[in-house]
């Protein structure tokens, strides 16, 4: 699943460790999500959306047409 996590993080000048701490996950988890190796659970996706004050579908794109 594609996502904009890396871009959103870069816009705030956060490191992966900074974002990981704010989401209460490991830095490796952030890296895996950013590189598309791991899809976050729904609760984590909501936490990410809340942190960036966006809707989940504005951050994650599973490729389905709207």
């Amino acid at each position: 699943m594609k996502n904009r996590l890396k871009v959103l993080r870069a816009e705030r000048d956060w490191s992966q460790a900074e974002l990981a701490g704010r989401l209460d996950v490991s830095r490796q988890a952030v890296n895996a999500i950013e590189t598309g190796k791991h899809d976050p659970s729904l609760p984590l996706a909501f936490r990410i959306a809340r942190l960036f004050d966006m809707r989940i579908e504005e951050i994650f794109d599973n490729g389905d047409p709207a």
Partner: protein
Amino acid sequence: MIWNSKDEVLGPGETRTRQRQRRQIFYIGVAALFGGVIGFSTGFFDEGTGSLFSGDWENIKLPPALALGLVVLLLGGFLVLPLWGFRMIDDYKREHNFIGFTGGCVSVLAGYPIWAVLYAGGFAPPPHAFGIFGIAYVSMILAFLYARWRL
């Protein structure tokens, strides 16, 4: 490097990440200490001539007080620590652990009957408990490492 220098300014997220890393190091340290004590004690105070690896149970002997102490450490190392660790990890690492546990479980399910058949055919010694434990443990670690490498 985990600990920051005095003049380094850390964000709240970085601070939490470093706390998480310190907890992980502590966890690994405690697990290694438990493993070291168990390994050293069973090796150094072994009073018998048997071997877990060959399934020679009747000749295995430890001082009773030490055996009880090792039970406490084994409960800590194989029950309390893993459950505590499971509470600390996130979804991503939990997935690695699930794959590891699955690898260990299916290896036993397949490994025991295969070993039994090999024994019946005269290719291997009879299956024994420590061997089954070893199959589960080693394959769990291999499956975990595979998951970490691939995911």
